[in-house]
């Protein structure tokens, strides 16, 4: 889960990193009050979980409280890459002497975290890395050791950052570890005219697997814009809405993605990704099917299950359970193989619904579902 900038700022402050004074609001009128408290002149920044907000006009400098109110009014409600701006952060401007880039990011290949730092911050670090790779230092962090002052000094030296950044690098590592973050990024990390090292903008991505010990920020489910995705999330179902016409349900992310591809290869477009997971119960299957059937753009549904832990008879029971409550108006193609497949197929045979048909292979099932969705 990505945190908002103001949440990242809050974390940095708690860990003793210097940040500009700032407050958050969803009201232009309050923005005026906040600007007054902060001394009049403020930066107004859209709070969205996406990059490129500056280019999209989501950041503005206001000279006084009245201007802050106007700027907040302009930015609130803006659409930035599909994200509606619900809140703005107002921050005291600082006089910047130099801008740096620092982050800790997971290096999947190496199986550890990597410090990335550059004396050329403030702009798109990927562009700096692409055009002048020597300007970006990459230092792997030993998992057993973490970032000590000595490690931080090495990172700062490799990137050509001033010695005052060492303390910030150590504290940022503490943020990463304490918060179970997968990414902590500060860009820019600024040296201000008064000589202080200040984190002017931050991005923190938390590990969804760690919510059992990091309850503070919630689970992030509030980020679903699509009503079907929100409904699925409320039932704990792994569902992604797509823009096609074949509803797809399967077990295991790999097999479901593969099913999407095979359907696309048959000339139809998948309407969604839905993974009932390993060892799914009849109820999970029923809930999943209900979500997919409630999507008006779905013209046919493909259920593709290879039972490893998942029992195919439970999947069939779930289909029957869903169809007992939702009236089926679209054809449903089911392919069951693996654990208890014969029993699952028998359940569906006995149910004998005219719109439910079974296929014996994955490719055959995909072809059939695609044809049913694309022939008028």
């Amino acid at each position, binding site marked *: 889960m990505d945190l908002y900038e103001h949440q990242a700022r809050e974390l940095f402050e708690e860990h003793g990193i210097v940040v500009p004074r700032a407050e958050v609001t969803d009201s232009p009128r309050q923005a005026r009050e906040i600007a007054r408290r902060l001394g009049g002149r403020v930066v107004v920044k859209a709070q969205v979980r996406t990059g490129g907000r500056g280019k999209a006009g989501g950041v503005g400098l206001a000279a006084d409280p009245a201007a802050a109110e106007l700027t907040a009014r302009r930015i609130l409600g803006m659409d930035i890459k599909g994200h509606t701006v619900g809140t703005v952060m107002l921050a005291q401007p600082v006089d910047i002497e130099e801008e740096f880039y620092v982050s800790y990011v997971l290096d999947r290949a190496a199986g550890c975290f990597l410090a990335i730092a550059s004396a050329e911050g403030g702009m798109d670090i990927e562009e700096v890395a692409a055009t002048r790779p020597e300007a970006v230092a990459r230092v792997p962090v030993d998992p057993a050791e973490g970032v000590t002052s000595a490690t931080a000094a090495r990172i700062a030296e490799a990137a050509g950052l001033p010695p005052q950044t060492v303390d910030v690098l150590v504290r940022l590592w503490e943020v990463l570890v304490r918060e179970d973050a997968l990414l902590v990024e500060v860009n820019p990390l600024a040296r201000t005219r008064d000589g202080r090292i200040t984190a002017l903008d931050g991005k923190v991505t938390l590990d969804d*697997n*760690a919510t059992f010990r990091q309850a503070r920020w919630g689970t992030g489910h509030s980020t679903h814009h699509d009503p079907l995705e929100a409904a699925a999330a409320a039932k704990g179902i792994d569902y992604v809405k797509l823009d096609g016409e074949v509803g797809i349900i399967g077990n*295991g992310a*790999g*097999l479901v993605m*593969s099913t999407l*591809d*095979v359907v696309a290869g048959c000339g139809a*477009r998948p309407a969604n990704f839905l993974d009932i997971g390993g060892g799914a119960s009849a109820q999970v299957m029923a809930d999943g099917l209900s979500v997919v059937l409630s999507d008006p753009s779905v013209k046919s549904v493909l259920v593709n299950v290879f039972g*490893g832990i998942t029992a195919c008879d439970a999947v069939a029971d779930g289909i029957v359970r869903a169809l007992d409550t939702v009236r089926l108006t679209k054809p449903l193609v089911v392919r069951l193989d693996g654990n208890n497949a014969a029993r699952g197929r028998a359940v569906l045979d006995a149910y004998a619904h005219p719109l439910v048909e079974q296929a014996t292979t994955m490719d055959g099932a995909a072809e059939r579902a695609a044809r049913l969705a694309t022939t008028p």
Partner: protein
Amino acid sequence: MAIHLTKESKVLVQGMTGGEGMKHTRRMLAAGTDVVGGVNPRKAGRSVDFDDRRVPVFGSVAEGMDATGADVTVVFVPPAFAKYAVTEAADAGIGLAVVITEGIPVHDSVAFIAHARTRGTRVIGPNCPGLISPGQSNAGIIPADITKPGRIGLVSKSGTLTYQLMYELRDTGFSTCVGIGGDPVVGTTHIDCLAAFQDDPDTDLIVLIGEIGGDAEERAAAYVRDHVTKPVVGYIAGFTAPEGRTMGHAGAIVSGSSGTAQAKKEALEAAGVRVGDTPTETARQVLAVLNASR
């Protein structure tokens, strides 16, 4: 021979007495796995009866190894305890830790994988289905009865895609199938398995299954080009996955152009790997390669 797991492997199950642990220990035993003990500090000294086999419960992996000579552990403990479990197993000097547990915080995985490395313990997973050498041993949750022993080696991030291919190729059979897991950080990579299969005299051909996200497949492709002389057939899932969205596996996310299915397919093909369009077509390619080399 097979890789990492043979009929000689003596297997402990950490978390055996929990619901999942019980269910899968029974299945592993039925598949012929030599399960020599369970590990649960609170139930040490007891035993559990699985049909015709009584399996003792030890207080630690170290105790279990002393008593049984175990060289493999399969970890089913809940996410919050996984780091401790694997660290203890590595400290005890176990050769292989297969971590089935899903939902382990990445910081914990990074820590126990790094620690295991310093102790010479191979970690497979986490968040993986485990590995099976059909007809010999099964460490994890892969269904054993959908295929038979043979000479194909398989490595995959995805459990159910592994099963699909095992089933498609059930008449030809497998030396070992390894589900390395879909988490962002895993203990054993595609490359590790490619290297082991290349050296395994009982493997003639390698099936490599990948999916969108990260660059593990691209790096595997480079490894195949430089180090693998056995035929490799690939399959990649996720061509239709939208950018910037996570699809199930924490690792299965695409951002920007790197990590796309197309990029992975091209990298593999450039390394001489045949890549199937569907799992079924991939199986056909495997058979074609095997028949051609006969």
